């Protein structure tokens, strides 16, 4: 046990976890976060709070995570390398831990020209692998500079993986690097292309990585075929199968079909060996989460057992 967070305890107990995701508001009010927490509380085990996703300015992921705790949800704070240098990242991590945040997802971040501040300077002082390494170092009581940290934080560290980008061998090498750098869990892009995902997952299993890290796979409910086409054409690194597009196109009620498709993916993922949880990304459609979790048969969510003092094993040995 590293952090003793709810997410970590459930994963180490061998439960199949469910994560949600919400984007912080574009405004100076915490009420939208508290409202979205209503959709997640009791239905998911932890919620990702995005860090200026697609390079659009929103409330900071750290403060949003604090508000999510207030709203009764366990946050997974996302941290990108686009907006901060190594000094700011480390100081923000210390503050986040002091505020009660236990899970952190380390990302490189979307390039600044994709958002509404295309004229900004991208920092990219560290990359995501180096950030994971930095957080792992901080957990063991050292800053990047080698200076001692007293008391050290204890984060449950996450990384991201894209199962759909090419070349596959390079993706596995990078995933291996993230695990070696100290990642405890991995979250992926949403699955809309099952054959490609299967191929990636079997490569992960062949490399033995599913035994060394908790793999949480993304799913996304879509409301229309337009959303799918947008993702296929405009979002780099996404892969949408023709089958999905045809299915959404021919549907009488695209909203219902989108939910059905998402639930089917969730059930299939539950049966896939090596997958330890799912990560629901309902972009601007958070209210659908309870229905998805219920229809996939993942309710009620389990409660973590109380932590025993001597369980300090590394993920390699327990999973």
């Amino acid at each position, binding site marked *: 046990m590293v952090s003793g967070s709810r997410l970590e305890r459930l994963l180490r107990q061998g439960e199949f976890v469910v994560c949600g995701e919400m984007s912080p508001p574009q405004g100076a009010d915490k009420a939208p976060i508290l409202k979205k927490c209503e959709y997640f509380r009791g239905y998911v085990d932890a919620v990702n709070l995005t860090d200026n996703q697609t390079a659009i300015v929103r409330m900071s992921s750290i403060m949003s995570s604090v508000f999510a705790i207030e709203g009764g949800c366990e946050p997974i704070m996302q941290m990108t390398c686009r907006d901060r240098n190594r000094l700011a990242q480390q100081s923000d991590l210390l503050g986040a831990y002091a505020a009660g945040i236990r899970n952190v997802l380390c990302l*490189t971040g979307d390039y600044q020209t994709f958002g509404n501040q295309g004229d900004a300077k991208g920092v990219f002082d560290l*990359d995501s692998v180096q950030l994971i390494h*930095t957080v792992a170092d901080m957990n063991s009581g050292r800053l990047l500079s080698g200076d001692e940290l007293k008391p050290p934080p204890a984060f449950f560290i996450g990384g991201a993986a*894209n199962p759909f*980008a090419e070349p596959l061998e*390079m993706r596995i*090498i*990078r995933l*291996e690097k993230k695990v070696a750098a100290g990642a405890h869990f991995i979250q992926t892009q949403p699955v809309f292309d099952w054959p490609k995902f299967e191929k990636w997952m079997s490569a992960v299993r062949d490399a033995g990585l599913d035994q060394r890290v908790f793999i949480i796979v993304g799913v996304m409910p879509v409301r229309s075929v337009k959303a799918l086409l947008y993702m296929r054409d405009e979002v*780099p690194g996404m892969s949408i199968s023709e089958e999905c597009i045809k299915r959404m196109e021919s549907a009488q009620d695209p909203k219902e079909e989108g939910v059905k498709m998402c639930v089917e993916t969730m059930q299939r993922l539950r049966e896939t060996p090596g997958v330890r949880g799912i990560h629901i990304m309902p972009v601007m459609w958070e209210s659908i989460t309870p229905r998805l979790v219920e229809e996939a048969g993942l309710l009620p969510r389990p409660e973590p057992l109380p932590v025993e003092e001597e369980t300090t094993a590394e993920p390699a040995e327990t999973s």
Partner: protein
Amino acid sequence: MSKLTEAIAEFTERHPTLYRCVLFGENVFKKAIFGCQDCGQCVLSYNAFVCCMRCPKQMRNGPCGGTRPNGRCEVYPNRPCIWWLIYKRAKWMGRVAKLKKYHVPVDRRLEHTSAWMNMFAGRILPLDLSKELREIELPKKDPPPKW
């Protein structure tokens, strides 16, 4: 690296004109052939001789998740993804094992200094031309002087 190379680096760094000549020679060679971005801590020999600092996000440990299906960059669709090039070249040269190397954060103090002299002085990883991956621990050293 060795006593001799350290002495060469020390001598060069004590003589600004000589250092500038070395830096100029290095840049003429590396910028023209490898598209070097002058980070001063060369990892070309690990990355199949393609400079990873040409990536818009300056990824040193592998590609980001945005590589397009045709191997193009997510930011500039008319340019290839640098890590796609690195992988293809590494595959062709039989140097894929080298891509597994974890690269530490860039020391920004070394930017626009001579990577050759930094390597001679033992500040950065030495050139590695073998196909297998060697693990090297570097001692902490002061950055070179700047004039």
